[in-house]
């Protein structure tokens, strides 16, 4: 019975079956840490994506807020309004639970976009620098020097300032998020570029690259087909930490006064606001967003750890 079904469905099923039987999936099935971490990431990402459906309130709608609900402790009715909130409310009377869900959307969007952008810029420039050498390399690596010189905070401030100067006032608040993405990406790409270049310099002189050259393959195929897969290990180490770091960098920028607008807070902005209540007894304003950030960043990092080992052919 099984046999008769297996054979005709093979073309459609085989892709998944192949994947399921691969070393990669095997390693996943045998790593409880990876499974738990990916479950956590999955839950968090899904609840962020479907925030409008899950969240009991829309914290980004100012008309729905009641200031008198401010500082309601978790699960206790508010003294004035008798409303109860799962994770309490913040200083504006916003439901902390809903705000976290909406905030996580912004944080994830900023983090993922920034890392992708940084990775693309870094890998392309790093490979080009290593492969071509000469003045191209010099130019790219000196630009990287200039870039490294400016602390991320300053890069962000610069981009904020310029963007503020060039965007029409009515779009400024929408703009803030994209500025954050570009700012974090621009302060992060150098890491990728330098590591890719460093690793690619070593790979470049190896026999397989020389061989590929001898049989007349073009520069770009060699770079991306042959060198890139072999330098991905350090890139992955950086990318995993970078994703968590990008989300955290957003929080740090917010601490220094350049972050997501307070009326549409990200997870980082929530923590920045919450840290002001560390001594005052309203622990929930800091605790829940910080825990969410911790769970998210930790899971991403753990997943990255596992992914690195699993993808590395040398470690099998």
């Amino acid at each position, binding site marked *: 019975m099984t046999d008769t079904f297996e054979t005709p469905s093979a073309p459609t099923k085989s892709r998944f079956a192949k994947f399921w039987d691969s070393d990669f999936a095997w390693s996943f099935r045998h790593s409880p840490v990876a499974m738990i971490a990916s479950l956590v990431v999955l839950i968090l990402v899904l609840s962020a994506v479907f925030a409008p459906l899950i969240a009991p309130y829309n914290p980004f709608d100012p008309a729905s807020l009641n200031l008198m609900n401010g500082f309601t402790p978790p699960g206790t009715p508010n003294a004035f309004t008798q409303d109860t909130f799962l994770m309490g409310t913040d200083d504006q009377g916003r439901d902390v639970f809903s705000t976290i869900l909406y905030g996580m959307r912004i944080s994830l969007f900023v983090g993922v976009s920034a890392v992708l952008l940084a990775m693309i810029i870094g890998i392309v420039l790093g490979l080009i620098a290593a492969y071509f050498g000469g003045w191209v390399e010099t130019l790219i690596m000196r630009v990287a020097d200039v870039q490294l010189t400016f602390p991320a905070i300053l890069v962000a401030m610069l981009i904020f300032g310029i963007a503020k100067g060039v965007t029409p006032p009515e779009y400024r608040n929408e703009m803030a998020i994209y500025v954050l993405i570009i700012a974090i990406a621009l302060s992060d790409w150098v890491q990728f570029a330098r590591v890719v270049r460093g690793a690619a310099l070593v790979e470049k002189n190896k026999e397989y690259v020389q061989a590929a050259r001898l049989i007349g393959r073009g520069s770009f195929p060699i770079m991306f087909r042959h060198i890139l897969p072999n330098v991905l290990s350090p890139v992955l180490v950086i990318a995993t930490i970078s994703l968590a770091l990008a989300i*955290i960098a957003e929080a740090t920028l917010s601490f220094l006064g350049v972050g997501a607008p307070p009326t549409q807070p990200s997870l980082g902005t929530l923590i920045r606001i919450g840290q002001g209540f560390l001594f005052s007894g309203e622990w929930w304003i800091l605790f829940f967003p910080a825990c969410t950030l911790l769970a998210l960043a930790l899971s991403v990092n753990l997943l990255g750890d596992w992914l690195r080992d699993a993808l590395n052919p040398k470690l099998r």
Partner: protein
Amino acid sequence: MFAYIVRRMFQSVIVLLVVGLVAFSMFRFVGDPIDNMLGQERTQADIDRLRGELGLDQPIPVQYYKFLREAVQGNFGVSYRQGRPVSTIIAERAPATLELAFVSGFLAITMGIALGVFTAIRRQGVAANIIMTVSLIGVSLPTFLIGILLIYIFSVELDLLPSFGRGETVMIGNWSTGFLTTSGLKALILPAITLGLYQMTLIMRLVRSEMLEVLRADYVRFARARGLSDRVINFRHALKNTMVPVITITGLQLGSIIAFAIITETVFQWPGVGLLFINAIQFVDIPVMAAYLMLISVMFVTINLIVDLLYYAIDPRLRVDARAT
């Protein structure tokens, strides 16, 4: 080699000039220093007069040229906020940042390498896995929050360590050091941990990942086959070969220690150049910002140069390349 160094030096100067130009073009986006310098009862005439006196009404290239002309002679101008020469202020503040960076860098490298090697050798061990997971908690929260939590635990609740500042310092020549007094050393602990935590985790993970690869390389297998002891294999052969990427990253991290010091110094009110810089941004103290950025640029360019040179020293294959470039 010598020609290479000379060429790199020349490039470095160009880098510095570009950094300066970028810095100067962005200052006007940071804000306007005038309002901070004049009180509540100022008039538009006062504003225009002061702007003229400071030369802020001139085009940016002119301002930059003037800055460079003075900077070449070692004169970085006078701080708008403090009314003192910037070079004096930076010389006063630099020891605090350098000592902090040194201690946290030292912590990060020693602990990072030690834990990295440990977790690589005992890859499947319970202790190694706990270290791997716990170390991640430290990098999964923003630095400022970690700093504030440390203050909350160790100075408010336990009352063991000071909550801010550098403690008592001793002057040795022009260098104020916190290494020689108990209060100075105590004051270093929390900021150094806050600052070094991220770098430590990064170095640790990197060392571990590189070690794991090297330990599976053929020459290590040969060494094992030859009957060399684990200790010799692990340290003489494996660790040595993980050093290329570790040096790259550590070099880069040295830079980011200085950049991250801005946050740590703000949280702990640590009187270093990072705090000076944050104050300068808040006050739009252009001479201080310019000098700080130039200083950081010089430092980064030097670090880059050293890292590149070390590359050539460690990996002989790259020497061919040096001649080519």
